[in-house]
């Protein structure tokens, strides 16, 4: 056999190899430990202990990662891994995560069918606290919790944000039980006549943007340059509802002087207007159309056949009443047109003929985008407005005479 060469290496290399071996053992310990260190293991131990104290050792609590899998909604919600008490009776007053879920909403929305995140938001895939509650970067659907409501200083019910998710399926309901903020906002939409300018659920005007799917607009697509404070789509809408022109310069949207509660409710409503990619069985029973109520339809028909019918046909009545002819605008955004002849003169210093020929301000936008009138139609408008003014003067004089009479 050939003689081995004398080697200087083993003396230093063997301890080095031993050190590397120790490093490998350390790495194994570390990655085993990191996999064991999930939050849910702690919460499950805690819950097992609480159940043991309350109901004795006979009750078994399932261990390991639990999930509710809803293939129809493509959700695997692992919330119940920590929130194990949701379906247990007897934890109604316990602190989260060990509180029993209120029974009432679950009657119509059984958790096996709807999962958790379809209503509550949050990240069902995750099993660690921050990740699951969605309070992390790159997760766009945080838990719609009371705490989030408090961070927005919601004026009414602090837990109202969850109602946005109610309205994904209940968007065509006129009223949804338990969704007070959304119901308030829906009433405001009718009262303030948003449809005068905006198309909502495929019905309405074209002066403002179509709002049917406004909720799916990405947060990056808003212009935040004039918004101070939180840079979120929700904050943007709240600020915009309070003062449209402050956020979007040159907007013709009127300032409705909404209260904080109203602006917040409306923001929740518009953010909920996004395509809900859910199978029909999950939608509410309401007809999936948004037609005027029978009373609204009857009112409109009556006004259409009256002396002010022309203004109803043309669409002026959407914003303007014409009280002398019995036309009552549902929205009443603009001034009553009964005395338009003198009103235009006093506001703009121009005659009604001149103003209609070359309108300014909001009417310039309305008459170029929504109600396009030919010169002949404008002639008719002026004639009709003069007739209305004559009627207005007659009624005014009569009223004056009546008031002067002792």
């Amino acid at each position, binding site marked *: 056999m050939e*003689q081995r060469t004398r080697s200087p*290496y083993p003396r230093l290399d063997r301890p080095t190899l031993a050190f590397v071996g120790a*490093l490998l053992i350390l*790495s194994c310990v570390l990655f085993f430990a990191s*996999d064991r260190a999930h939050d849910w293991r702690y919460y499950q131990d805690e819950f097992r202990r609480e159940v043991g104290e309350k109901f004795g050792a006979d009750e078994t609590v399932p261990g390991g990662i639990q999930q509710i899998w809803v293939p129809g909604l*493509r959700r695997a919600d692992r919330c119940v891994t920590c929130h194990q008490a949701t379906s247990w009776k007897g934890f109604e007053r316990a602190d989260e995560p060990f509180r029993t879920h209120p029974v009432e909403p679950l009657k119509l929305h059984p958790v096996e069918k709807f999962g958790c995140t379809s209503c509550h938001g949050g990240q069902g*895939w995750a099993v660690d606290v921050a990740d699951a509650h969605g309070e992390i970067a790159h997760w766009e659907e945080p838990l719609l919790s009371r705490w989030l409501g408090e961070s927005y200083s919601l004026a009414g019910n602090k837990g109202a*944000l969850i109602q946005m998710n109610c309205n994904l399926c209940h968007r065509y309901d006129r009223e949804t039980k338990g969704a007070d903020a959304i119901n308030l906002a829906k009433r405001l939409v009718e009262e303030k006549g948003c449809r005068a300018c905006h198309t909502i659920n495929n019905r309405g005007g074209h002066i403002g943007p179509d709002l049917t799917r406004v909720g799916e607009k990405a*947060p990056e697509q808003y212009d935040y340059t004039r918004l101070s404070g939180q840079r979120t789509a929700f904050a943007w809408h709240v600020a915009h509802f309070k003062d449209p022109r402050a956020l979007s310069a040159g907007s013709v949207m009127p300032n409705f002087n909404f209260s904080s509660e109203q602006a917040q409710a409306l923001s929740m409503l518009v953010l909920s207007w996004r395509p809900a990619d859910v199978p029909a069985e999950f939608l509410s029973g309401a007809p999936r159309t948004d037609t005027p109520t029978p009373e609204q339809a009857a009112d409109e028909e009556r006004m259409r056949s009256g002396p002010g019918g022309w203004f109803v046909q043309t669409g002026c009545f959407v914003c303007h009443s014409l009280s002398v002819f019995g036309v009552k605008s549902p929205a009443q955004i603009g001034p009553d047109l009964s005395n338009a002849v003198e009103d235009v003169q006093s506001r703009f210093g121009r005659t009604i003929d001149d103003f209609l020929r070359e309108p300014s301000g909001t009417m310039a936008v309305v008459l170029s985008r929504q109600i396009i009138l030919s010169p002949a139609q404008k002639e008719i408008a002026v004639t009709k407005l003069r007739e209305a003014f004559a009627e207005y003067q007659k009624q005014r004089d009569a009223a004056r005479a009546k008031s002067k009479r002792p």
Partner: protein
Amino acid sequence: MASLAKLFRSDAPSAPGVRPTRLWSYRPKSDREAGDAITSNFLLHWFPAKVSKASMAWSYSFWLGTATAALFLLTILSGLPLLLLYVPSVERAYQSVKDIEYVITFGRWLRGVHRIAAHGMVILVVLHLARVFFTGAYKNGIGRNQHREWNWVIGVVMLLLTLFLSFTGYLLPWDQLAFWAVTVGTNIASSIPWIGPSVRELLIGGRAIEQATLLRFYVLHIVFLPAALGVLFAYHMWRVRKDGGLARADREELAEVARVAAPSATKTYTLLGVARGTAPAVTARTLAAPDTTVNAVPDLARRAMIVTLATIAVISILAVFIRSPLEEPANALVTPNPAKAPWYFLWLQEVVTDTTVHLGPITINGAFIGGVLLPGALITLLTIWPWLDRSSRAVTGLWFPAARRTQNLVFILVLLAIVVLTFVGMELRGPYWDFYWPWEAWPAVPTRI
């Protein structure tokens, strides 16, 4: 159990011509066993029997190639379980990565190891290439049939394959980071004159990054590119042996040749009477001067083991502490601001920006300069450099020799420029690719609620 014991037993009965054991003995008791140890030992087919002490030195090679190979091994080992967990479909890829992150046992660690090893491989391949350049290790010494220049070319190809492997893996999570990095990357490719758009279409399997792209990148990532890299790696190793080991080993030979004019005696061999010649690695000097060499087993094997295991340990520990990013699901309609290429292409994206010049109504698009001209020229230069380098072979295997001062300096400057531009692209470029100092905060990214 009995058969297992037999496998390791060295005194098992044997017939003539049949080896008594299947495994080799670490401490052979007879010449027969020693011979068996050589013929059945994979390491001895990979490594030479003897290796020069000089090329064993930590401070010569820093063992960068070995560490790179260890990282390649690690990406394969961590990639195999990921193959069973990841679903290459646009509907489910993102979700399956979430599951790997959150609920698969050791999933987060596996993904971390795979990702960090892949990024580390890019860094180490470049460092290895720089080491070979600085030591002029692509130059041939005095051995016969040395073709180190071709091994250098193979190395450059392997660098490109490593980048492409990493790039194809980048898309797989199908999140915004992946989608837009690949968008930027493939847009750079489409700036090649004439054929650019076709190259992009070939790369992404259509005109938009969609299911076809994901599948294409996936198959490239798990089959074709690793296979190609594996084959080239084997060839790379084989060439190192054929070329007489590391270039450093030639140093002593060259010094000797410089002193003794007469050619030294060499050990000749014949193989089955067909091939005959002089083995380049086993010259008379190495045999005559055992002081300058050591046995590859155990000394070289032990060091290779140290480097490999240390690499695995370091990556494994890093993977526990560094979380792999996963952004929002890919959305072709919303461009994140800023949209950045993978970090190793950021120097190119930076060059593209810096060479895009607006002169009034005329815009000179930097995509051609930064995306094609510059990388093309650099790769070409790098590939043919062994033939352009006219320095004496006497400086082979020497760090920063005076004879190669200028080219080493230029190489350092180019490398430094790439590092600086990469840093600028990674850290100092914010929304709209605007420049931000590290102490300047970027505008907050808006969220839905």
